């Protein structure tokens, strides 16, 4: 290589080596976790198996659960542990008016969670009571579990730089309280309880509505423990429909739009 070429490459290189090191410096400056996930991760209550039933006939799509969860768990701007997704469903014949379907979404706390086995550090695990949690002080933020979850229930928290998800508000359950989303639901659409106890409200609900109980992606072999009552089969798997105009918030809260 001649001298001028080497000088040119050297200059280019010195500029971009600096650029390559920026994220490492940023992350180390970020310091320790800012999120509220418990530092003392509990192993759960043995003998219990928590699950949730969501009665879609009672959900009005008010997003009170989304707000309550956000206040309780303080995820960063634009990131959610639970949301209520809204769909317009119309029939082919014009005589039937279109209907709305409100679909609350959260971690399914699967019996066979695909997010756990693939975790390279064991930061995510299932407690004795079935709740799937993340130790965000051990998580390296590789994002592998975010990919593995078929329900998009996980995300990399912009503040803690580690995996984050719904915990069924385990910290509240342990204090004898209901999860924030259940407590705030105006239609009492969300019911949480012990699936191992045949007399619990959730077990009774599942028994009474046996014919109408569905889970999301039943063929994914994940055995979800969030059950839906009153859900059409068309919503079990990936939506075959029209996408909305979506927006995306960047880390700094800037909104990006796009249409389809």
């Amino acid at each position, binding site marked *: 290589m001649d001298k001028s070429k080497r000088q040119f490459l050297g200059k280019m290189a010195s*500029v971009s080596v600096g650029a390559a090191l920026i994220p490492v410096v940023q992350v180390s400056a970020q310091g320790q976790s800012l999120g509220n996930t418990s530092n003392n991760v509990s192993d759960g209550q043995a003998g219990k198996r928590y699950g949730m039933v969501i009665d879609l006939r009672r959900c009005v799509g008010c997003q009170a659960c989304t707000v309550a969860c956000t206040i309780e768990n303080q995820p960063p701007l634009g990131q959610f542990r639970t949301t209520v997704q809204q769909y*317009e469903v119309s029939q082919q014949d014009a005589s039937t008016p279109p209907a709305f379907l409100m679909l609350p979404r959260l971690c399914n706390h699967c019996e066979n969670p695909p997010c756990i086995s693939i975790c*390279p550090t064991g930061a995510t695990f299932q407690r004795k009571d079935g709740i799937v949690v993340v130790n965000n002080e051990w998580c390296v933020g590789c994002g592998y579990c975010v990919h593995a979850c078929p329900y998009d229930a996980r995300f990399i928290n912009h503040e803690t730089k580690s995996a984050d998800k719904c915990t069924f508000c385990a910290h509240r359950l342990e204090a004898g309280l209901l999860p924030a989303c259940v407590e705030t639901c105006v239609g009492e659409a969300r019911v949480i309880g012990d699936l191992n106890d045949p007399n619990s409200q959730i077990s009774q609900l599942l028994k009474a509505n046996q014919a109408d109980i569905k889970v999301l992606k039943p063929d994914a072999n994940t055995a979800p423990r969030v059950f839906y009552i009153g859900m059409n089969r068309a919503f079990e798997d990936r939506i075959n429909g029209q996408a909305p105009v979506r927006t995306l918030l960047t880390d700094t809260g800037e909104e990006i739009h796009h249409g389809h």
Partner: protein
Amino acid sequence: MVIKEIFTPDIAITWLPWAVQYFFMMGLAYASIWVATIHLFSHGKRDERLLKLCAFLMLTAGIVAPIALMADLHQPLRAWHFYAQIRPDSWMWFGALLLPIFSGASALFAWLLLRQYLPTKASAQSESPLDWVSRIAQLIRLGDWDSDKWIKPIALIASLSACSIALYTGMETMAIKARPLWHTYWLPPLMATSALLAACGTLAVLNRLLKGYEQYTQDNLLLWIRASFSLFALCLIGWALFDNGSATEAALLLDTSPSWQLAAIWVLVTLALLALVLALRNLPQTLVILVSLTAVHLAWGFRWIVLIQAQTDPKYGAGTYFYQLPWGPEGLLGIAGTFGLWIALMVLVSELIRHQPHSAREAL
């Protein structure tokens, strides 16, 4: 029944462009080890220029790749957590074990191949006693003992390690059932063959760029490009014809998404152009460089589609999600930074190995 999404979230991508850089750089490193090893064990005249270029590439790309990987971790300082427990069900955990072995093996192999270009004690003193680069290069040579007998055994070990990296990087992605585009056994061979294509293309460009151009080496590399391109194209055709999970998902995206249609047109046009030019018997030198650069860009673009664009494919929702390449370190600056670091290393290493070859026998 017609379903319209009224209010649904847009899911941001999790693996950032750093991942593309890692898979690309790692591909260059492990594939150049394969090229060097196959050449070492094949009959015929030993092409020292080809071995030098391979060593140069495996060393520089092999250093940059793990740095890009660390940057893709959102908590890079916690990387030691990988080694604090046993997680045999996680391909990524296996990768964390295999990666340092590969780094060591590839650096050792590269050092053995490049050692003859590092000045001996006598030559360093006679050339210019004040040339500190030469002094450092001489120190890196670690004495004037004969290391030639170690090249072949270390080549075998490094190649096995390269295979382990090709396997783990492919399987790590393939193992994700929730992403139908990734969940195909065609993905690891597609990644490996495109890595070989990229490495051969890069070696041809380096042959032209670095002092000491050899026509014989370029002809040899053109053969490698033809072979690796054919393998990659065959794997792609195999995936399109015989896969019914990933290819079906891709067909679905092609039906509905303009950005996926654009990606498909780009892949097909690049493949067709390359096939057409590579079919020519005699290629002028400028065309060989163009073909090499196109091959490198195809392999990089393939990784972009697989690793970044595939994340815009919703797992539950309709349509596709939105992604806009940010300017900062999590986007364009990260890509530029990785390439810049690579260029810096290439400049540094090329400075150290600019000397005439000195065999051990000559030194003694």
